[in-house]
């Protein structure tokens, strides 16, 4: 039976003519265009519904995998007229060939499917993967596209999820925690500084506060200066950097009004000062 199937597969491939190749290409192009349209539509809808933005974006990758899988299935089943058994045999054969030749590529594709299924991160998340940190713009079959804070577009191979730790700052939520450190002179009025920092955070136009998303201000005592840490959630992870800048600027403007100063540079960098 299997022998017969293999023979049919070989015969069918022997019968491939120009029109079969053209139809196959046309199906692939159609799948490509369809996946682009679906991605465009879902992105547009997700931007309209702020609350479910990331949920909708996360479906894009699933649709993409589905569309390409259906296209490949359609080419093999309808154009090459292969039965299910023959498809399995062909898949094993192709798997063996590419397992040796294009191992990395297919490792990335397998990782892409794992990302879609397990959701370690989604489109729109802010993640740290390998040496890169940024917002996930797209999860392709082979690579994940990220925009770094410096606006660089980084294409990280999906297989990194197998070898590197991936940290997601918001894991599917629109808001994400952003911590901010501010250092002040040791003899500063700490109570006043903490009050100002807290008010700078809670009055920021980028902050999001709820019972599960509280604002926390922490004080750290160092030998030559004091450190304040503000932990709060930014309403949209895309505002993370502008939020930090907003808080820093407004806090320092107020600190200067009240005579709260940053630690002296020589003290902060006390090792080089000692040298």
């Amino acid at each position: 039976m299997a022998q017969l199937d293999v023979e049919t597969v070989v015969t069918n491939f022997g019968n491939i003519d120009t029109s079969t190749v053209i139809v196959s290409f046309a199906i692939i192009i159609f799948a490509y265009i369809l996946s682009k349209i679906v991605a465009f539509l879902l992105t547009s809808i997700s931007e309209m519904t702020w609350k479910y933005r990331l949920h909708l974006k996360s479906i894009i990758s699933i649709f993409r995998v589905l569309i390409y899988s259906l296209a490949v299935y359609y080419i093999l089943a309808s154009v090459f007229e292969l039965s299910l058994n023959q498809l399995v045999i062909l898949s094993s054969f192709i798997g063996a060939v590419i397992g040796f030749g294009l191992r990395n590529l297919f490792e990335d594709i397998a990782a892409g499917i794992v990302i879609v299924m397990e959701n370690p991160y989604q489109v729109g998340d802010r993640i740290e993967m390998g040496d890169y940190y940024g917002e996930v713009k797209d999860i392709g079959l082979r690579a994940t596209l990220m925009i770094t804070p410096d606006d660089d577009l980084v294409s990280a191979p999906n297989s990194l999820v197998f070898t590197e730790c991936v940290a997601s700052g918001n894991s599917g939520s629109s808001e994400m925690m952003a911590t901010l450190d501010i250092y002040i002179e040791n003899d500063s009025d700490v109570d006043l500084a903490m009050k100002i920092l807290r008010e700078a955070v809670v009055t920021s136009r980028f902050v999001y506060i709820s019972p599960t998303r509280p604002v926390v201000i922490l004080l750290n005592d160092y030998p030559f200066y004091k450190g304040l840490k503000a932990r709060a959630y930014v309403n949209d992870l895309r505002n993370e950097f502008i939020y930090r800048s907003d808080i820093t600027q407004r806090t320092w403007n107020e600190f200067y009004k009240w005579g709260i100063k940053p630690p002296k540079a020589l003290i902060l960098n006390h090792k080089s000062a000692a040298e």
Partner: protein
Amino acid sequence: MLTSNKKSSMEKSLFGLDEQIANIQKGISDFESGKSVNIAILAHPYAGKSQLVDEIIKMYPHKVTNVIFSSIINNKAEIPLLGDLNKISIFDNCHYLYTRSIGGFDIIKEFLNTVISSDERIHITTWNIHSWNYLDQVLDIGKYFPIQITIPPLEPAVMKKFLLSGYKENEILFVNDSDVSEKKIFTAIKKPITEKITHRTINLYSLRINNAAFKALLFKRKKDETAESIIFEEITKISHGNPGVAKEIWNKCLEYPVIKTSSINSDFDDIDFDDTGRFVLYIILSMGHLKKEELKQILYQSHNIDETVINKIIFEMFNQDLIKKNDDNYSIKIEKLYDVIKYLEKIRLVW
């Protein structure tokens, strides 16, 4: 700021607030029997907060001191907390006691401290619901007011009574001029176009939506539903049950003595601002109305937004037909209130 012990001269009827009044009466009777009680009344702008306050004054004419804040309070001496107040102290528009700026919570903290320290009187406070929701997250303000009363939206039947309260019976004529006879919601429209090179005719198809039929299906409207019922349901829906907004829509749609179903539309206009513009819009919404000087006080001193930017944003808001100016006060246009709320909720400025 105004202080008044007098009974309101205008006789106003209350609609749909019976339960709220009963809760307030119970709170006052608990206080009179020795319990420490403070009440917060929360409402959207134009929802009827002032009417409820007037009703309390009418019920307890000699026991009430009413303090109305109508602009931002910058000095705690402006709050007559230690003055000769009656047993029932009403503080209207308490959202003017804070500003969303660094140092903007000092007065409200002082006020809240006084409110919980005084056992001699009951404090009834009213708040813009957006300011309240913000302060509840930032200052946990709900803990200071064990009784919180939210003014609910009106149901269509109550809305009808409210809107028709100023007219005689059968004075208004309700007309249903919407086309619901056509049952199909979507109709394919064929548009022939002559192709330029070969001069062949190609048919382009588009979909036409029958709005009236679509609405009828959406709201499970029956064929024999009266024009009056359709109109009050539509107005209640568009106004989110807010009587102030409903009255504005009613006045705009009424071609006395006729009101038509076709005149009631809920077209949502796109609102588009940058981060700063959105924030200014939120500040105006959460305060109800503000003078430009007050906006400058919040935005310049704490948010480094200078006057030229504020002017530009206000100009944009007028361009998008979102705000109005009355006696130097800027406020959200009544009919745009829920468009603005929806927009600010979407971008998570309204929590």
